[in-house]
Every structure is written in C-alpha cells, then in structure tokens.
C-alpha cells in the first residue's frame, strides 16, 4: 500500500512539474513592453566559432550600437538538421524573428512564412543588383515581392597553386585557357610527382559536382535558365555528353587525386589544397573553401584562378558559374517586430556591417557599394571582373539539388556503376522532375 501511494504521489508531482516546464519555454513578451525589441536570429553559420562567429558577433554589436532599442539574440543551429528546426518553428507558428536561408528552392519553400520586404528595402534596393533581388523574390520570380535579403553571392571555379605549377615547369601566371592546355598541365604536374587535382569524393563527391556546374555554365551560358523550362536539356546535348567524357578522362588518366575517393570535400580536400598537397582545386567563391582561405594559406600572390575549362563543343567560353544569393536573411511572418528585424537584416547587408562580414569571412557580398578590392587580395578582384552565369543546380528540386546529383556523379565517375548515357538520362530526369513540379 505504501509503495502504491508513493507511485501515485510521484505521478501527481510529475504532472504539474511538466506543466511548469512547458510554460517556461514560452518566450516572454516582457521585452517589448518597454519599447525595446529583442530580435532572435537563427543561423546555420554561427556555429563556425573560428571563422564566422567572431564576424557575426562584431556585426551584432555594431547593429545594437547603431540601434539602441534593439537587442540581438543570435542562435547558432546545427547545419545538418537546420531546415527541420525551421519547419518545426513554422508548424508551431512561433520562433525566431530572422532566419538564415540558402538562396533558391530552400528559401522559396518558406515564402508563405516570410514577410515581403519591398517596402523596407526601397531606400537601398539599388545597392544590390536586380539579378540578386530577382533570385530572392517569391519563387525566384522578379515580378513578385522580395522575401530574402542576400548576404553573399556564391559561385564555383578552379584555383591553382602557382608554386606547384612552377615546379612542374608551367607558367604560374598563365592559367590553362582550354581543354588541351588543361590536360597538358595535368600531365606535366603528374610527371613532376604532383597531384594535379585535389579532390573530395568520399560521401558527396562535390569535386565532380562543382566541376559540372562550371562546365554547364560554358555549355549553356545565359540559356541555362531554359534548363528549367524544357527549352534546353541535358539529353541530346553533345557538349553535355562531352563534359561527362572529360570528367571520365580526368579519372582514367589519374589526374584526379587517387586518395580523393576516401577524402571528404568539406573540409579535408580543401585543407589538402591549402596545405599544398596538390596543384588545382575546384572550389567555392564565397563562404568556405575560397580565395581568402587559400591566399591566406599559400600566399596572397601564390594562388591563381580560372572559372572553367573551355572545350570546343561548348557554345561559350570563360563563363563563371554563380548563385545570385548564396545565403541570406528572411524575416518570419510571426515576428512581433518586423521593423526592428529589418534593421538588423539591413545592418548585415550594407554599410559597415557588410564590409565587416566580407572582410572577416571572405564572403562575396552582392552589395555594390562595398569595395572588396580594399581587402588587399588581388585574386578576388580578378574573380569579380567576370560576369556570372546562373548555376543550373538552383533550378532543381530539393532532393535533386541536395543529394541525387551527387549520387549520380558518384555512380558514373567514382564507382563506375552507370554509363555516361545513363548518367545523362538520370540527370535529365532531375530537370524533368523540376519542370513537372512547376
């Protein structure tokens, strides 16, 4: 009887304590009562305590000093299940005021839950190109309202180590201008005992994925957006097939790092290139694995860059693949302080805050007023000289853009499970899926 009574007592105590706990998790509205606003930001970059967080802390402090009524609560969320957390917040109808999104489909899915920003950005809209604003508009439609302020532009290109080029008897100041020169450079490097292309192919083979994005820019140029409408296709395009054959050749001739199959791209392969363990690297232009990281490691004048490999079958030359918004901030519809939240977003996207963001992290800003050349890296000025062509990956659905393409690349080039024709067919399937979804 005594034991039974004890069990009952425990159960009775458990119930109110759970109620108190659940009530305690509700955010207090007290902060707004005195005219001050606490703005909460969710972010998948803030967790990078060495690279990004110090910059964001500085920018937050700057914004708070410029706007005394605003307190910023910056929350670093885990990268791996970030969008699950945001979805949970949407389902609950409450959560942070500001949410960081990747540009493109991952942001468009939240259009119904993020505010239209046009009236807030009207005064400084001209600082960022309409190319970026269009991409950040509802479902990527320039005629519809803007739902995200871009913080970075993203892109891909090929970096090379000038010292290793010199060691292999190549001219370090002259990047390979076409396929023949590129293959000759690889051969020379290989003969000199240098890994021609540092690759990250374990798990998601991003080295191949990113190389294809560079190739596609040269194959379709400005017409790349037609891959989303069916006017252009992978299937039946001789240049796309040739690009796949080139990738195959890079593997068969041993130009891709033989250890790449068991090297993850992030961050092992990038670190290998930065450590001088290979001559070329298909890298990013912003956020991570970019010009600043490599120049800091190999010397400001020690790194060269070219946007793509030109080959005869491709219609265009020297096209640089890019995303008009790599990452950006949106304000959620449930925010009680959208004006204050927009002030915070603005603090990141322009002026001193944006300059800090770019200078400390090496991110490429879409803001035209921020002069990146002042940072003292001649390479980035070279990169920015070239116009951008839309990354085809941004036209795909989530499942294809965030995984399936990588798996097809692995099957075709790493494990040799599927033929080039099959690779083209499944890649075309991704375009078809995206068209059907529209």
């Amino acid at each position, binding site marked *: 009887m005594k034991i039974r009574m004890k069990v009952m007592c425990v159960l009775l105590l458990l119930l109110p304590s759970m109620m108190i706990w659940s009530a305690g998790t509700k955010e207090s509205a007290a902060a707004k009562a005195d005219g001050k606003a606490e703005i909460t930001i969710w972010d998948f970059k803030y967790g990078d305590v060495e690279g990004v967080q110090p910059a964001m802390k500085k920018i937050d402090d700057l914004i708070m000093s410029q706007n005394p009524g605003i307190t910023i609560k910056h929350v670093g969320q885990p990268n791996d299940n970030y969008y699950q957390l945001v979805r949970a917040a949407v389902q609950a109808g409450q959560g942070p005021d500001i949410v960081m999104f990747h540009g493109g489909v991952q942001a468009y899915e939240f259009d119904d839950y993020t505010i239209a920003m046009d009236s807030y950005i009207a005064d400084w809209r001209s600082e960022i190109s309409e190319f970026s604003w269009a991409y950040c508009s509802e479902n990527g439609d320039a005629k519809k309202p803007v739902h995200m302020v871009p913080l970075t532009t993203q892109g891909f290109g090929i970096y090379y180590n000038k010292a290793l080029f010199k060691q292999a008897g190549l001219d370090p100041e002259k990047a390979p201008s076409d396929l023949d020169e590129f293959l000759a450079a690889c051969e020379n490097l290989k003969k000199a005992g240098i890994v021609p292309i540092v690759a990250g*192919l*374990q798990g998601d083979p991003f080295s191949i994925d990113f190389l294809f994005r560079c190739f596609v820019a040269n194959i379709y140029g400005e017409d790349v957006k037609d891959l989303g409408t069916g006017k252009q296709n992978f299937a039946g395009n001789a240049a796309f097939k040739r690009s796949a054959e080139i990738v195959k050749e890079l593997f068969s001739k041993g130009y891709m790092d033989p250890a790449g*199959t*068991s090297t993850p791209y992030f961050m092992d392969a990038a670190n290998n290139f930065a450590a001088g363990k290979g001559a070329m690297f298909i890298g990013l232009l912003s956020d991570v694995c970019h010009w600043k990281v490599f120049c800091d490691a190999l010397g400001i004048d020690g790194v060269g860059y070219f946007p793509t490999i030109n080959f005869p079958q491709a219609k265009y030359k020297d096209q640089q693949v890019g995303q008009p918004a790599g990452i950006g901030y949106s304000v959620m519809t449930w925010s009680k302080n959208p004006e204050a939240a927009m002030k915070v977003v603005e603090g990141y996207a322009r002026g001193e805050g944006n300059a800090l963001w770019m200078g400390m992290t090496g991110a490429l800003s879409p803001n035209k007023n921020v002069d990146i050349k002042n940072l003292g890296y001649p390479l980035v000025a070279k990169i920015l000289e070239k116009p951008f062509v839309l990354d085809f990956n941004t036209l795909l659905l989530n499942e294809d853009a965030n*995984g399936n393409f990588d798996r097809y690349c692995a099957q075709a080039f790493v*494990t040799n499970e599927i033929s080039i024709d099959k690779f083209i067919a499944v890649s075309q399937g991704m375009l078809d899926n995206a068209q059907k979804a529209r």
Partner: protein
Amino acid sequence: MKSEAKESYLLIMPLMLLLLVFILYPVLANVYLSFFKWKGMGKATFIGLANYQTMFRDETFWVSIKNTLVLLLYIPMGVMLPILISALLREGLKGWSIFRAIIYIPNILGYVIMGMISSIMFRKLGPLNHVLVAIGLEGLALDWLSIPKLTLNTLGLVYGVWLRLGFGCIFFLAAMSSIDESLYDAAKIDGALWWRTFWNVTVPSIRFSIEFWVVLSFIEILARAFPFIYTFSRGGPGFATFTLEYGIYNEGFVAFNMGYASTWASVLFVICAIIACFQVALMRKNSDVQ
C-alpha cells in the same frame, strides 16, 4: 471489477498512455500521412495512393530494399559468432577480462562515433590499409569505401557483426551461466566432443536467448542502422549503402517529401510487423514444445 484489478489497471495506465502517444499514434499518423503530399509544414494535400504508385516505380526504393536484404544476410553470422566466442570463453580463458573490455568498447561509444571511426579506418589511405600493407597483405588493401559491393558488405560486417559482438558475448555468456553443469558432465561421460556438446547442450539450452538476439538483430538492421550509415557512408557511394531506413530520412529530411517518406516508412513497418509476427509465432511454438 475487483479492487486489485482496478489498481493494476491504474498502475499500468501511465505506460499505456505513453505507448499510445509515442508508439500507436505515430504509427497510425504515419500511415495516414502516406496518402498526402506534405512538405513538413503548412497544409497537406490528399493524393490517395499516388505516393505508393510513385514508390513502386522508384528505382531507389528497390535498391534500398535490396541493400536492406543484403544486410539482413549478416544476421546468422552476427548471432553465431558471439555464441561461439561465448562458448569458448565459458570454459575459461586467460586475460578474458581485458578481452571483454576491448570487444565491449563499440557498445559504449555508440553508433555515431563508431560510424565516424569506421569511416576513417576504412579509408583508402586509412589505418586498416596501412596495417595490411605493413604486414605484407597489399592485395587486401582495398578502396573499401568506393567500391559499391565492398562498401555494402563492409557495412554488413562492421554493423551487423562486429559492432555488437561484445554485447553479444556478454549476453550469451550470461545465458550460458544458467546451464546446468551436470548436462556437460553427462555429455563428457557419453564421450561427446566439444562441437557435439556445443550443438546438443549449449545451443538448445540458450534457445530462448538466441531467439531474442535474432529479434534484436532484425530490429537493429531494419530500424536502427541509420546513425551508423549516416556517419559511415551517407548511403553511398552512389546508392550502395542506401537502405530503406536511410531512404526514409532522405525523403523526409533532405527532400522534405514527408508524405512520400511516410509511404516508405509504412512499408518498413509492414516488413517489421511480418517478421515480428513470424518470430513471435516461432517463439510461442518453441515454448510450447519446451
């Protein structure tokens, strides 16, 4: 109703409530959701059996079924090996306590850490290949993580067998400790050799534990392998280690096709239910015989 019965119901009520909320409701909600198109937020749209039609046409689904079945083939080895080791250890082995600690380590570290460690161990330039080369077995120093069949079988061996070897040994040793010693004495008098004694005395005596371990093994492979696969190979290379469970994660939390992911989850539930029913029937039959 007797007051004692009432009290019994009252005492099991919290557990029943938990089961209802955390087991029964999610299962039913999952089946319900499989008839909808839902991106994990906002309004769900009823689409009838469309998700099931898509799934049966989806090449990835069939690949995941095939991969899952291959992993299930490792269950016999995952059951037999710890039994054999336990049977040897039962007779006493010098330094057993150290050996026990070593083989039990994977259970302490957990799947995520073991997945990470295994992924590093099996790299082309990883420690395993270094050791193989150092001892003159260059031919066995393979690219474990980029040859599809090899990666899948490595996963089966590491996850299905090695990872739970330590716990299995301890589990079966505990089971064997309850076997009446007189049975072994009788076998010895009858002139039975070690193997004969193992098959005719040890195995039948721990039959119930073996059946339980088999059930656990099925659960581990069908419904608990995700954290290991995620850290070991991310379902790759390509779709080489992409299992049914991994597909549910991929569709649900990468593509955010929650309705479609629920369809896959319903299939996994049906497979688990069939296996569970079969095993329960088998266990009942065996207990009746006993």
